[in-house]
């Protein structure tokens, strides 16, 4: 899993560096997000995702002590937080699309803004979604004893990684694009 995460991190790094490249080489990068509701909403999403990391860590801890029932419950909580994150994220996407932002154009200027935004957040969201599938399989097998404490820890690794990626995306995509 560590090796997979290294390679996945490289994929994200390449995309984030590409973002830096096009942003620096574009004359006027749009900074469309108001503090409220835009940034506050994204902060709420960040909070939800961070909470999910906490619940996941608790699940791993419970597994180590052998309390499988408790661990399954915390994994379920993690899945719920992940699903809430995706729901909030899609709401935000719909809001932006309603304002005329698409991968090819947006009302504020450099068309690449939309491409970068949807490309990076889309890939991240796909990771959260696959994480939910992964954790569902994991969570369902914890109580019957199909998975060991180490299996849950490895699942946790993936989940924290996805969370960590968001901790890069949030400042880079949102906080550096606050309306001046």
């Amino acid at each position, binding site marked *: 899993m560590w*090796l*997979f995460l*290294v*390679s*996945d*991190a*490289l*994929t*994200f*790094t*390449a*995309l984030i560096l*590409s973002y830096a*490249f*096009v942003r620096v*080489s*574009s004359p006027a990068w749009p900074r469309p997000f108001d503090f409220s509701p835009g940034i506050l909403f994204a902060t709420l999403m960040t909070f939800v995702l961070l909470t999910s990391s906490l619940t996941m860590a608790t699940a791993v801890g419970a597994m180590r002590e052998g309390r499988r029932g408790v661990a399954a419950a915390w994994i379920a909580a993690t899945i719920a937080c992940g699903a809430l994150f995706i729901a909030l994220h899609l709401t935000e996407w719909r809001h932006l699309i309603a304002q005329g932002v*698409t*991968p*090819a*154009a947006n009302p504020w200027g*450099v*068309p*690449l803004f*939309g*491409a970068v935004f949807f*490309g990076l957040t889309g*890939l991240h969201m796909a990771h959260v979604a696959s994480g939910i599938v992964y954790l569902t399989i994991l969570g369902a097998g914890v109580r019957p004893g199909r998975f060991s404490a180490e299996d849950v820890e490895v699942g946790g690794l993936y989940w924290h990684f996805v969370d960590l990626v968001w901790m890069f995306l949030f400042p880079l995509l949102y906080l550096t694009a606050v309306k001046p």
Partner: protein
Amino acid sequence: MLGRIFSTDHKVIGKQYYFLGLASVLIGLVLSVFMRLHLIYPDRKVKLFEMLWPVGAAGGIMTPELYLSIMTMHGTLMVFFVLTTVPQGGFGNYFLPIQIGASDMAFPRLNALSFWITLAALLVLLGAFFVPGGAPLGGWTAYPPLSAVGQIAGPGQGDGMDMWILSVALFSIAALLTSINFIATVIELRAPGMTLERMPLTVWAWFTTAIISLLAFAVLLAAGLLLLLDRWGGTSFFLPSGLVVSDRLLNHSGGSPLLWQHLFWFFGHPEVYIAILPGMGLISTILSVNSRRPVFGYKAMVGAMLTIAFLGFVVWGHHMFISGMSPYSAIAFSVLTLTVGVPSAIKTFNWLGTLWGGRLRLNVAMLFALGFVSVFVAGGITGVLLGQPAMDLYLHDTYFVVGHFHLIMGVAAVFAMFAGTYYWFPKMFGRMLNETLGKIHFYITFLGVYGIFVPMHVAGLAGNPRRYPDFKEFEFLSDLAWIHTFISHTSFTVAAVQLLFLFNLFWSLWRGARAAVNPWEATTLEWSVPSPPPHDNFGGASVTVVRGAYEFSVPGRESDFAMQAGETPQ
């Protein structure tokens, strides 16, 4: 039957990779013969072309677009499905677990999955020939903007380009899975006593290569995603504003084609080392076995490989000297590039040191290993020339570059594959290859590749640009016509000799002399088990490793070699 085809045994998967590479190299070779044929007889009507490409070669004369699409497919097949696949996926899969004393890879099912994804990638790539418009035209580098705008950039840039990107993306995923598997296997599954300092250099090479491809293919995958978004999602990552293609102004703005070049070459340069490092490991072993001497400077060899792997990631800019980069960055990239010469020279001198004073056994594997060292030096020296911006400004996109990378990346890696085939065939199939046929194969191929690629350097120095479908309209190239005639005819000869190799391969599969357990008197673990090895490699016996990989001619010992395995497991 199905169980054998969809086997998770690393030896079956290794052979599957090997034959996948063999099929690809044959197609790639035939395509290159077509190109050389067209270059010297641009106006001759060739029935075969018309049969194969009724549209692209109507009347038997190849259109420029068809030439470019054949060139693209040649490059893509050779780089991905031969140079990346055979040394790592083929030989690596087969021998890495045996050489470290494991019964299989760390993740056998993942291993099988990687192979089937690679096969799917190959089929998707070949499918590009059959979609409307045919195969893409952009070379194996697929530079935007023309690769990002679709059909209007040329017949193959529509569906053909989509197929190409999909194929490369699939291939990247398979390569990532393979590299994860290799790294985990080396770290976790070494037999008792197989310390890092006792690992054969082949294992070190596969391990290093796996680290490189883990990092490099992830970036290629990201670049491929962006290119697909540009083509299907209407984004403009690689498309600047005001772009006019085929007299049409495109509605894109803000992107930069240079972004692709950065991403692509961040993968593309390490890719060169993905192709050559496994060969370096193998050549070290073959030279040592056949000169009955330990590898000279084992630790320096490992260090040099790791250094090359690291430097490979910081020199991608030398592919972009003429892209308008700042001269300061160019100098930085140039210095880093020339630094690669240091570990490469360490390896070369250590190979010579291994040979020095040895009792050479000039079997075919050894001949190809010596040939490898020769072309590696020849191709490396021209690399030093190209690594300097001032020289590169002139030589870029000429035949000099074509000659250079074919020697160092193509021929060197292919020689390593030949050496590997002659060396390991007895172990893989339980029979010996014919040495006489092998020697004819070697000498003609060895002289032939120099006859092909050295004149290309000369043509390049004279200013002959690459990727031109023919030279008849350019007066300044008319003096070079004889060089191309010579190159083409040499290449036909070399291609024909490969039939001899194929004959030898398939004839020996069924009719070759039975191979003993250790025909080369080598020391690594695979030569302690029967040829071919049983399903779990060691027949259930546990292996202990008691010494290093290259204990040849140790003073005071009766035999001039000592096996790594403690007791011969039966």
